[in-house]
């Protein structure tokens, strides 16, 4: 069984540019989560999808961040326009319905210069 995958693994962009991160969850997992870790800080929750619906987006920092999960499969997280403080590692995790464990992807390291 393939694990959670994320693309790209690294992204370096300039302030003001747009970046789109992608997450492919484990097949059949309805729950998909995005988290972010800014350097030296804790991993922070961003949002939670159940299938294609946003269940909880309380952790999204501001309206420069847009997450989608069309069709309830993969998800994208777009940052537009990017700011310096958006730099960090963005993790995606998925969980099967009824399960308790979140399976994490390798993360995307975003650097905004």
């Amino acid at each position, binding site marked *: 069984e393939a*694990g*959670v995958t994320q693309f790209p693994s690294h992204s370096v962009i300039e302030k003001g540019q747009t970046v789109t991160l992608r997450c492919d969850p484990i097949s059949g997992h309805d*729950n998909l*989560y995005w*988290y972010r870790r800014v350097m*030296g*800080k*804790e*991993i*922070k*929750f961003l949002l*939670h999808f159940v299938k294609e619906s946003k*269940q*909880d987006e309380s*952790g999204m920092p501001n309206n420069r961040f847009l997450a989608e999960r069309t069709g309830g499969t993969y998800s994208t997280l777009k940052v537009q326009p990017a700011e310096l403080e958006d730099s960090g590692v963005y*993790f995606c*995790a998925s*969980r099967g319905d009824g399960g*308790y*464990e*979140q*399976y*994490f*992807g*390798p*993360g995307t390291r975003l650097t905004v210069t």
Partner: protein
Amino acid sequence: AQSVSQHNHHVILSEAASLELGCNYSYGGTVNLFWYVQYPGQHLQLLLKYFSGDPLVKGIKGFEAEFIKSKFSFNLRKPSVQWSDTAEYFCAVRGNNQGGKLIFGQGTELSVKP
């Protein structure tokens, strides 16, 4: 607000030393507790969890953790560490009615010297 505090940012031990990583949480209701580990170059993976029952839980690779409700703590222990335990360790909590989102501590980087 919910929060998780890990006591140490970086711990350095020699092989065979005993390990205890502290974790305290702040949450008003029933919680589920987790320890995750991230080995160098690898994904975060679940080490162990506590939902209910016996407060002493055992996980993979010889790790265990004890839930002490009165102290809001969930400390991670291992009697004898190995070089391969070098990794970053994260304590996390999830409220029972929180839809599954995890609240993480800051992480503790463990370096084990051979």
